């Protein structure tokens, strides 16, 4: 499970540490406070984890990447600490990146893996290909540096730790970004990958189609959960139409043998979030999995929120399959179902820099034996609201 994040010089996150992450963590804050920058920072880390930061840098051009008032010599720092369930060790993977902003190219990339303070592995790249009109011209071979393990450590174990860390970040973080709305009917050409879920949920049908065929037991659990969430649903399925189109279909209790003509945005949202969770079980299910969801409550009726959070709590409670959800919300009704220690308040100071703070300890003692956290949020007792 991810326990700590640190960002430096990444967009509005000039120097932000987020500690003591819990299996469910919710970020609240005013619009433009920096919540999405945290989510995008995690996405940036996934992309850099391959060891080649160039595509990630080019996808976040110019000022989209670095904190204002920093220059090319200021490194961007991204660090993630997690509890490796196999070794039971807290491991930290840190990436430092310098960018030549004018050319949107990395000039320096350093990453290392630590166990506590002890460094296990390090990789440095300080020469990158020059891009001229889209053609790469290689400068020098250090591009291919694959790093090295620190002398004097158990190299065999360190290799395993590094491999699992890379799998955790690259393959076990799934993000459903702002405004995700899965397409529920796609041509075979549009199906997309079977894993992980895309940022906009576009490959939901591909994931479910694969799940149904290759992992029918997982698909059954998915079906049961979605029917539990939405009482009117008898079952869901993937329909293949004339070998050309795949379609997510629901069958309602009122007419169980007839495919419902329409599917609401809320149903599509729920399906995407549950599919992301169940997709972790396709392989390496003993490894930790993290789903990051921007505004999961969008299009969900307030009456469903308690059920939804209960389902998430159920998902993260299995010690054999460590799972975690990081979410953002603007919805006090959603926040009502969380404990203060599961919530972080995101705000910006007068310079425009983001701060991430826990909810003050006294909130629990003063309010929470009588009222929900979301209700207390609206009193302005702990920030996270526009001025």
């Amino acid at each position, binding site marked *: 499970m991810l326990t700590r994040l640190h960002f430096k010089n990444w967009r509005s996150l000039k120097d932000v540490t987020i500690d003591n992450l819990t299996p469910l963590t919710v970020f609240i804050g005013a619009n433009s406070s920096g919540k999405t920058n945290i989510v995008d920072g995690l996405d940036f880390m996934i992309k850099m984890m391959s060891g080649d930061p160039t595509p990630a840098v080019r996808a976040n051009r110019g000022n989209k990447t670095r904190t204002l008032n920093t220059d090319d010599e200021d490194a961007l720092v991204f660090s993630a600490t997690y509890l490796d369930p196999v070794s039971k060790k807290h491991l930290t993977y840190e990436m430092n990146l310098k960018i030549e902003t004018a050319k949107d190219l990395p000039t320096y990339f350093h990453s290392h893996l630590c166990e506590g303070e002890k460094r296990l592995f390090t990789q440095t790249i300080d020469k990158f290909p020059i891009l001229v009109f889209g053609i790469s011209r290689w400068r020098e071979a250090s591009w291919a540096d694959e790093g090295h393990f620190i002398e004097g450590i158990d190299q065999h174990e360190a290799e395993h730790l590094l491999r699992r860390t890379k799998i955790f970040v690259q393959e076990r973080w799934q993000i459903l970004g702002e405004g995700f709305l899965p397409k529920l009917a796609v041509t075979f050409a549009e199906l997309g990958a079977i894993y992980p879920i895309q940022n906009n949920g576009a490959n939901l049908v591909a994931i479910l189609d694969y799940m149904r065929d290759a992992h029918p037991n997982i698909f059954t659990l998915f079906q049961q959960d979605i029917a539990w969430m939405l009482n009117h649903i008898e079952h869901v399925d993937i329909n293949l139409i004339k070998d050309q189109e795949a379609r997510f279909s629901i069958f309602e209790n009122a007419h169980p043998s007839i495919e419902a003509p329409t599917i609401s945005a809320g149903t599509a949202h729920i399906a995407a979030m549950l599919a992301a969770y169940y997709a972790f079980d396709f392989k390496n299910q003993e490894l930790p999995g993290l789903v990051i969801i921007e505004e999961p409550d969008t299009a969900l009726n307030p009456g469903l929120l308690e059920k939804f959070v209960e389902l998430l709590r159920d998902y993260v409670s299995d010690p054999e399959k460590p799972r975690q959800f990081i979410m953002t919300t603007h919805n006090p009704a959603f926040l009502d179902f969380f404990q203060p220690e599961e919530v972080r308040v995101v705000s910006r100071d007068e310079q425009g820099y983001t701060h991430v703070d826990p909810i*003050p*300890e*006294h*909130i629990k*003692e*003063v*309010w929470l034996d*009588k*009222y929900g956290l979301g*209700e*207390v949020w*609206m*009193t*302005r*007792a702990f920030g996270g609201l526009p001025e």
Partner: protein
Amino acid sequence: MKTLWLIAEDESGAQIFRAIFERRFPEMHVPYILPRGNHPNISRLAIDIEDLINNIHVDKRRKADDCIVVLHDLDAQRRTETSDYDKIKKACEKAVKDGLKLLECIAVDEIESWLLADSGVCQWLGEKRGNYDTKAAPKDILNGWLKRKGKITYYSVRGRDEVFKHIVGDGDQKEYSPSMRWAFTALTNASCTT
């Protein structure tokens, strides 16, 4: 930076007080908290007052010299009973007895009378400022002035924001708002502002 912790009955009251206070004490920070609910009011303030005071009392960010202000309207011209007001008064008195530097500020009859006494607001609206503490429904008077000025209503967030921009914060001069004068005399002598 010194802090004045404000508890107000609603959002617009908090914003008016804060805007005036910050004109007068620009070096001070004024975080505010409100009763629960989407439309807080005096009844909700009466229900939540002890929790709101306690919330500030135990907040680790509060320093010894910081003040707490509980702000609400007197509403004498329209209220039908006084139990909510009495409850708030009692809670404030108890907090002071317990050692908190707390001041109950009561705007007469509504805090908008402080705006009708403000030179900046009145000049912008082209109206004569005066003592409206004794008049009924200063909110409605201000709304009438705004309507005369243009197509703005005080009963919208945009309308109120427009008014707040013009606040100078001088409505406590002798011939204008006595309730504001009482509040700001007390605040000028308070530990957080001296």
